[in-house]
């Protein structure tokens, strides 16, 4: 298939393809970060994760409408405000859900799956009732669309760069929060031994609530960012859920580094195969590969050594 092309053309295609893989990597990582905290750290199987993302997307949509109608002059920067609002909205919802539902279920992790599935049904219907069954189109400021030509043939998508930058920033923030701050220490202490952590004076309930809210808030930011590349509708959240869980599980649930590595591996495999195969087959083979590797190495790529 490469016979008719000059080396320069091929080179630029491969550069762009590498870039496509990096975008996919950022997308996967952004999807998975929130869940890595909720599932990885707290053991809660949050099936409504996609719906938290979509909440962020809807918040972005409303912010954009607000700016368009009232302060069009500042439209070009609305997205930053939208992301902050998305974080707050999803985080607040997360905090409420933790209080009303999740905190009763810490001893029964599999039951969180059922309860959050019910939650996701309810959220979908609420979105449908409030925002309509149709998809909404989120208008983006002009500077976020289009691409920067690096050379004559290599072009770099601006929204791709944006997602990458955002992912990098959030990953660093999460890493610092988890591994450098005293709050992170508390979270990890609670994860490793809830009773002991409580005994040494950590307010485990509060730690749980904020951890869950943080994970949901990050999901909201991810949803906000995905309005640039995907659709916003009541059921769009379901598109992400399998991929997201696989990334987290493949990485080894409790490890941030693992999540990063696994998002990288899966995205590179998928984007490379998509280039050579049809989209459907690429997806099947990627999933099969992940399942196969998980069978051989069930604990995921990276694991924490925890005494059980």
């Amino acid at each position, binding site marked *: 298939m490469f016979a008719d092309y000059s080396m320069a053309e091929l080179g630029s295609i491969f550069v762009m393809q590498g870039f496509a893989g990096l975008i996919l990597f950022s997308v996967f990582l952004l999807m998975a970060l929130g869940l890595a905290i909720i*599932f990885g750290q707290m*053991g809660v*199987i949050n*099936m409504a994760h996609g719906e938290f993302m979509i909440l962020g997307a809807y918040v972005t949509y409303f912010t954009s409408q607000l700016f368009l109608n009232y302060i069009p002059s500042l439209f070009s920067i609305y997205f930053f405000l939208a992301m902050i609002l998305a974080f707050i909205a999803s985080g607040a919802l997360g905090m409420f859900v933790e209080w009303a*539902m999740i905190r*009763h*279920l810490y001893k*029964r*992790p*599999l*039951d969180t*799956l*059922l*309860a959050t*599935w*019910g*939650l*996701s*049904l*309810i959220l*979908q*219907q*609420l979105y*449908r*009732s409030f925002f309509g069954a149709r998809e909404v189109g989120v208008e983006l400021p002009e500077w976020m669309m289009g691409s920067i030509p690096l050379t004559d043939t290599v072009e770099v998508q601006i929204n791709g760069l944006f997602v990458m930058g955002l992912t990098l920033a959030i990953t660093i923030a999460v890493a610092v929060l988890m591994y450098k701050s005293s709050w992170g220490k508390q979270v990890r202490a609670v994860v490793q031994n809830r009773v002991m952590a409580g005994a040494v004076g950590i307010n485990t309930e509060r730690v749980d609530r904020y951890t869950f809210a943080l994970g949901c808030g990050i999901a909201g930011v991810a949803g906000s960012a995905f309005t640039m590349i995907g659709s916003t509708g009541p059921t769009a959240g*379901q598109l992400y*859920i*399998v991929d997201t*869980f*696989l990334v987290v*599980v493949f990485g080894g*649930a409790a490890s941030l580094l693992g999540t990063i590595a696994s998002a990288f591996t899966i995205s590179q495999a998928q984007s490379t195969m998509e280039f050579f195969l049809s989209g*459907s*087959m690429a*997806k*099947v083979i990627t*999933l*099969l590969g*992940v*399942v196969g590797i*998980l*069978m*051989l190495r*069930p604990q995921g790529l990276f694991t924490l050594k925890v005494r059980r």
Partner: protein
Amino acid sequence: MILSRKELLGLTILATLILVILPLSLDIFRLNLVGKYLTYAFVALGLVLCWGYGGILSLGQGIFFGLGGYCMAMFLKLEASSVENTKIQSTPGIPDFMDWNQITALPWFWEPFRSLPLTLILVILVPVALAFILGFAMFTRRVGGTYFAIITQAVAAILTILIVGQQGYTGGINGITDLRTLLGWDIRTDNAKLILYFVNGLLLIGCLLLAFFVKHSKFGRILVAMRDKEDRVRFSGYNVSNFKIFVFCLAAAISGIGGAMFALQVGFMSPSFVGIVPSIEMVIYTAVGGRLSILGAVYGTLLVNWAKTSFSETFPELWLLGLGGLFIAVVLAFPNGLAGIYGSYIEPAIKRFLRKKSDLMPSGTLPQGSPAE
């Protein structure tokens, strides 16, 4: 003795409900709907065994239901695609969707489905084989809990994409539709629907008996022990993974039967059953019924589906709220589902009532309570 007295009583009541009360009180349309719901009860029953007793939560039971259903549907489709029925096709004698996809000869893996006995074997064998492969790979490596759940979910996703993508061989997203006869017997008539309903009901009761047998056998006790303290069982010299593989395969086999009965009663099979959403829904039937209750699985399935149908007929735009609320309520307030409600509220009330009576009649016997179901 397979059953305790209480279980025998419960099973008799359920059998009367399925085989006598419902057929007498419902018209054939509603009865056929109940028949469809009861096919899901097979899956729910399988989940009671592997999740409730074995502690293995699978989010991919729809896979086995779907495979069983596809096996049956392939047989029925081949019968419906006889040369005279399909003479307008460019290749007569093969299913219509193959013809649309320029496939000119029946693929090899369709061949076994020309024979009914072979089909009936495959209805059970194919799901069991896949369950064995999955189970063997997972359980010997001690994958469990949430990991297993998520991996089964991924397998369901893979299978859905494959079935939808290979539409020339599988019927794609439309599934296998327009099934007409079983060995020349028209399965679409009201009469046939009635007969199939009873066959389905009897098979379900058979599977319930099997489940009770498993529960009371030594195997069932080991399962429960394993669920509660896996390491201790392992240290006592049992091969834990073999037990898990067996119960997972058993659940798959039962689900496969349900799928086959679905294809017979509804007249088509669709890849939407293989996916993640129906698989999770089926887990929810089990949870609503009570994950430890064999009979509860059937009641849970009936209740949820009845709620779903009647909500969606009355409030088509709001029924998801009710359904979602039901799941949350069950998990938060009634973790043992209907069986739990029965065990902690209704049964004591009955006992009190009986006790009052037996006080009046000194020779009266109390029902012997077996350990909590």
